[in-house]
């Protein structure tokens, strides 16, 4: 079986005048977990919908599972599981019925769907809610049900659009745990997110998107190595203007934001000691290792979640 699951070259999507995706290239390999990281409006969802053969591309080439979405949409979709941002569950139906009906769209035999549904409900920790209607379920439960639903067809490729947006920390961690399990079973995952911690946790490889373009790509570690320093010192100045001139030529680079100053340095403690030696007294300070957020900031000059 080929090893590249998705290939895009010059892939573009325009809505009238608006350019949502602006000629991007990427490859997604079989079995990897691939992320699209970027702020709202970066073009992540548009890209995902094109991969899922739910939205026609405007220009470029796109191959999914070796086929062309334009001509082989139904065949590709039969091997894809999609977890959309809005769950699009049938709220009036029961948890189990949602799985049964969805499986029937793939024309799977009832017996097969029921057997898979039981396993998937177990996986999604929803077994005891099988006969309940979906409406009163919590956001985390609904999202887990949507993932279970996407798995009914046992897809080769699972696409998740912002899987944990709007969920509380506990629900997020449970969901991440389930996605790890799928990953370890060899399911190819495509994830869009605007949470850098999610991207770091889940993605083997990712692209950072901004304004419809790919700003950078690679493994989380490689991205941090290439676009940021090992450590970052965060200085907070409550209510007062940071003393700009005293912060010149500190570490590799400094970023002055409205509420804080970031000092990029290989050795954070040494940079902090230097700050104190210059007589700067921030309200609080913190030395931490670089994250993808810092990568995004250094690439675009903006924070990810605004």
């Amino acid at each position, binding site marked *: *079986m*080929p090893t590249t699951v998705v290939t895009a070259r010059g892939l573009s999507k325009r*809505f009238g005048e608006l350019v949502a995706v602006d000629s991007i290239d990427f490859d997604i390999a079989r079995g990897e977990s691939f992320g699209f990281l970027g702020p709202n409006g970066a073009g992540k969802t548009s890209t995902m919908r094109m991969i*899922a053969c*739910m*939205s*026609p591309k405007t220009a470029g080439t796109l191959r999914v*599972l*070796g*086929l062309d979405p334009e001509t*082989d*949409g*139904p*065949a590709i*979709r*039969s*091997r*894809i599981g*999609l977890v*959309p941002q*809005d769950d*699009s*569950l*049938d*709220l*009036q*139906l029961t948890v189990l*019925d949602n799985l049964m*009906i*969805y499986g*029937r*769209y*793939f*024309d*799977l035999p009832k017996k097969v769907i029921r057997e898979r549904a039981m396993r998937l409900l177990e996986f999604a920790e929803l077994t005891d809610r099988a006969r309940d209607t979906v409406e009163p379920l919590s956001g985390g439960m609904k999202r887990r049900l949507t993932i279970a639903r*996407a798995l009914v*067809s046992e897809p*080769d490729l699972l696409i998740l659009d912002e899987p944990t947006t709007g969920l509380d920390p506990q629900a997020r961690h449970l969901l991440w745990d389930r996605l790890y399990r799928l990953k370890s079973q060899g399911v190819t995952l495509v994830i869009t997110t605007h949470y850098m911690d999610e991207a770091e946790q889940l993605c083997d490889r990712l692209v950072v998107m901004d304004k419809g373009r790919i700003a950078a790509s690679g493994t989380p570690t490689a991205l941090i190595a290439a676009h940021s320093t090992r450590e970052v010192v965060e200085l907070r100045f409550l209510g007062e203007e940071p003393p700009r001139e005293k912060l010149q030529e500190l570490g590799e680079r400094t970023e002055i934001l409205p509420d804080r100053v970031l000092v990029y340095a290989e050795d954070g403690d040494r940079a902090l000691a230097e700050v104190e030696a210059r007589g700067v007294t921030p309200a609080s300070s913190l030395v931490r290792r670089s994250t993808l957020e810092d990568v995004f900031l250094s690439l675009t000059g903006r924070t990810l979640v605004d």
Partner: protein
Amino acid sequence: MTAELETWGIDLAQGARMPPTLRVLRYHLYTYMRTWRSSLTTSFLAPVLYLAAMGIGLGSLINRHVGTVDHVKYLSFIAPGLLASSAMQVAASDSMYPVMAAIKWIRTYFAMLATPLRVADVLLGHFAWVTVRLILTAVCYLGVMAAFGTVHSPLAVLALPGAILTGLCFSSVISAFAATQENDQGFATISRMGLIPLFLLSATFFPLRQLPGWMHPLAYATPLFHGVDLCRMLVLGQVDWVSALWDVVYLVALTAVGVLLARRLFHRRLLV
């Protein structure tokens, strides 16, 4: 292409058991099962109430003062008109809020389109479901009409497809309209400005000649008039085959236009 599919482990033989349109229809039947009791009760109660109130109540007054209408009792005159009108009502209501819900509120169509189903399957499945609803409604209505003694000819059986065609005509056009809407306000307008005037003025309750002459071409241009005309001729057994043919041609043509329009607008709305 076939070889390529097989490389990817896509079993071409699998998944070919049930046509996609029927898979969509199965979804509608499945959800209908949750409410079929109340829905079926309505299907029986509506004709009983209409025929009792309008036909017997109003009808006895008319029969006493005017005598027969077009050679039959008033009850017999309006019953086929009500059959066609209720087909319009059922088809219209199933093509307004449920379509909007499937596009915007529950987004069922998008859930379907993430699977092997295509826009055409979703649309034809919707029409298949409306057809099922129309069959149930029309059969109930005709059954009640027979019980009231208003069926005058075996040709009345042909009024069933007549009523179903009338309903599909409305369903296709209104579904196309629903696919263009951002909220449900337009539906109230359709009911107020479209369906209710048609219901009252399409010769359902009185012969067309009772209306002033300038309104005749207007009535003739509307689909419900042709549905009522067709059903009435068949149920009463007074068939003018030429005008029946015109009724059918009109309804089939408008349905075809509606289906093509709906296909275009569903694509535009769902494949963005």
